[in-house]
């Protein structure tokens, strides 16, 4: 596959690994923000090819994992209402709510459908005028533009049986939150290439200034990730800190201005609760009041649902990179993708799921 194979090339990877080993003289802790990168790292065995001095810790960039429990419960409540067709990306279906997940609600008779795009949900709404069609809009800045576009399209089509349960989150406030934690060990970041494709890296510049930490915008293929690590290590070894762009074939400083405009037209910045990290100020996107007729929380009157998350798994600690999944006593025993204690074991971007699927028993003694 053109534009993919060259970034999975064994020889390029070898050269980068040799160079990383050559420049590394001290131990460094680097966090990849994005769960997609976490999976690429574990799936390709990159962590085990790096010099022992470099520790990769896995960040909170898994939208499914940080979606608060009460949002899942709201989704379950809406999906259970008769005459509702509830649509979602596939990942959300297995995330456990307080007592069930969407798959179980589906098996009890609810009409829950997996879609690959919310625009697909619009088609379902147009084809089923006697039903209420709801889309579960979660994700980082990457998926926010399509949420915005869908709302604008619903408005253009005059669909009155379509709404969205929106729970978008933003990366930079989460980075700040991690760096302000007294337990922080992270010395450099690989920023999520696809988030930056939309948003650019301007908003990371103040973070570099304020926290004196290198940030490298990084892609998702093995060669991208190795190059991002090399660029970060070079900065650390040379005592520099700046924002650098490894993913230059895709990412520009200003990002995708059309997509950003769409987002700001439809959504506003709000405080958002992150599962495992608590409420982070200004870290979420919600629909603007003028789009209230597409807001499922208002339409189905479930704005006030609040749920306490029982302290049974350590996904919050995992999401901050303070522990590795295999350091959890429940990992692979009480907690598996089949019976997950938390969303990090469910999502295709969750760190626990990555370790379970690709690295079990190589790092652990299960």
């Amino acid at each position, binding site marked *: 596959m053109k534009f993919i194979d060259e970034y999975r090339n064994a020889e390029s*990877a070898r050269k980068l690994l040799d160079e990383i080993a050559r420049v590394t003289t001290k131990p460094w802790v680097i966090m990849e923000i994005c769960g997609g990168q976490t999976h690429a790292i574990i799936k390709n065995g990159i962590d085990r090819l790096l010099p022992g001095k470099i520790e990769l810790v896995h960040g909170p960039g898994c939208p499914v994992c940080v979606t608060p429990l009460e949002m899942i419960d709201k989704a379950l409540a809406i999906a259970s209402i008769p005459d509702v067709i509830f649509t979602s990306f596939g990942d959300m279906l297995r995330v456990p709510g307080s007592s069930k997940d969407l798959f*179980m609600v589906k*098996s009890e008779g609810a009409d829950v459908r997996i879609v690959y795009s919310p625009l697909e949900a619009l088609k379902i709404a147009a084809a089923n005028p006697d039903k209420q069609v709801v889309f579960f809009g979660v994700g980082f800045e990457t998926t926010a533009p399509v949420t915005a576009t869908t709302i604008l399209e619903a408005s253009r089509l005059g669909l009155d049986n379509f709404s969205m349960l929106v729970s978008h989150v933003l990366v930079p*406030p989460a980075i700040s939150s991690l760096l302000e934690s007294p*337990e922080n060990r992270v010395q450099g970041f690989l920023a999520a290439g696809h988030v930056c494709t939309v948003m650019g890296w301007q908003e990371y510049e103040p973070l570099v200034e304020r926290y004196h930490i290198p940030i490298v915008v990084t892609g998702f293929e*093995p060669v991208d990730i190795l190059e991002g690590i090399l660029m970060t290590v070079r900065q650390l070894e040379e005592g520099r800190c700046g924002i650098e762009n490894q993913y230059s074939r895709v990412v520009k400083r200003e990002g995708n201005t059309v997509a950003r405009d769409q987002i700001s037209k439809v959504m506003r910045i709000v405080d958002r609760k992150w599962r495992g990290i608590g*409420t982070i100020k200004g870290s979420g996107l919600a629909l603007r009041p003028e789009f209230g007729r597409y807001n499922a929380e208002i339409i189905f009157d479930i704005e006030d649902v609040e749920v306490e998350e029982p302290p049974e798994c350590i996904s919050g600690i995992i999401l901050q990179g303070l522990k590795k999944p295999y350091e959890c006593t429940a990992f692979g025993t009480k907690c598996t993708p*089949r019976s997950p204690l938390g969303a990090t074991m469910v999502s295709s971007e969750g760190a626990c799921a990555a370790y379970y699927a690709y690295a079990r028993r190589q790092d652990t003694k299960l």
Partner: protein
Amino acid sequence: MSDKKPDAGAFSCPIPVSRFSTIQLSHGAGGRLSADLINSLFVEIFDNPALKKQDDQALLEIGGLKLSFTTDSFVVDPIFFPGGDIGDLAVNGTVNDLCMNGARPLYLSAGFIIEEGLPLDQLDQIVRSMKRAADIAGVQIVTGDTKVVNKGKGDKLFINTAGLGLIEHPYIISAGNLRVGDNVILSGSIADHGIAILSKRQELNFKTEIESDTAALNHLVAAMLEAGGEGIHAMRDPTRGGVAATLNEFARTSKVGTKIRQDRIPVKEPVAGACELLGLDPLLVANEGKLVAVVANEFVERVLTAMHAHPLGKDACVIGEVIVEQPGLVSMVTGIGGSRIVDLPEGEQLPRIC
């Protein structure tokens, strides 16, 4: 910027959802939940030695004859897809299950569950396609059953086929028969069937020329047996759950490890592209005309030569070996030289793929 400092100790996760009181789609996906259901319900209650072996076919001895007996139901959606339809799929699927222990498939049954309103010309087309597939495989469909259900109570057409075959060789070809040092042979490119079906699903809307690989493998198997039957320790057609599920079942049943190499596994370019787009691992995607064979080292050359001479095995290659380390697990050397586990699929990747 944060409201309050993150408090690691207070971070939490929800209550476990570990037991299901109703059947989930994943119970039929050929992955871990399917295995759980089969083991804890069917094998437990039906309880007999032939079933307990858990091969894709039962091995029976009647009056000095060794018979291979199997059944399979087909619920694929859509019923017509690039490269085939539910009819030839139903014949080929059962023929393949029969011959994976080296049996010569002979007779099939066919049960039709038809939804009221199915156009008769579609049924006609499917039945003719079954006849063609049976002729190619050299089997006869000798008995059958027809039921019609109310509109909305089924989905167009479901077909069940059962099959009977004769084992005429002395070898033991079984999931529990892997030995350290054996080679793992794959008969050709993977994931074609799953992606062909997906490409025709309404909700997915992508265009591709990929065709299902549905085919009867019994003639290929016969050629392999003739070339080196005594060296063939296990065979399976990797349908639901893909090559990953097959290798995991082999490793677990035989209590050995298996190591494969990513760079040796053939995946057609458009299939790889579709998997990339959809976030699917080709190792987990269904095939309907491929086989995995585990063969003793000294027989590999002979078996491969025989496979290469057959159209369905022309791309056959060795993708890995059976090792003593990590018994019960399948590991893979990745494209960049790292290593990872290849696990059973956990849940439903693609419902109603066959």
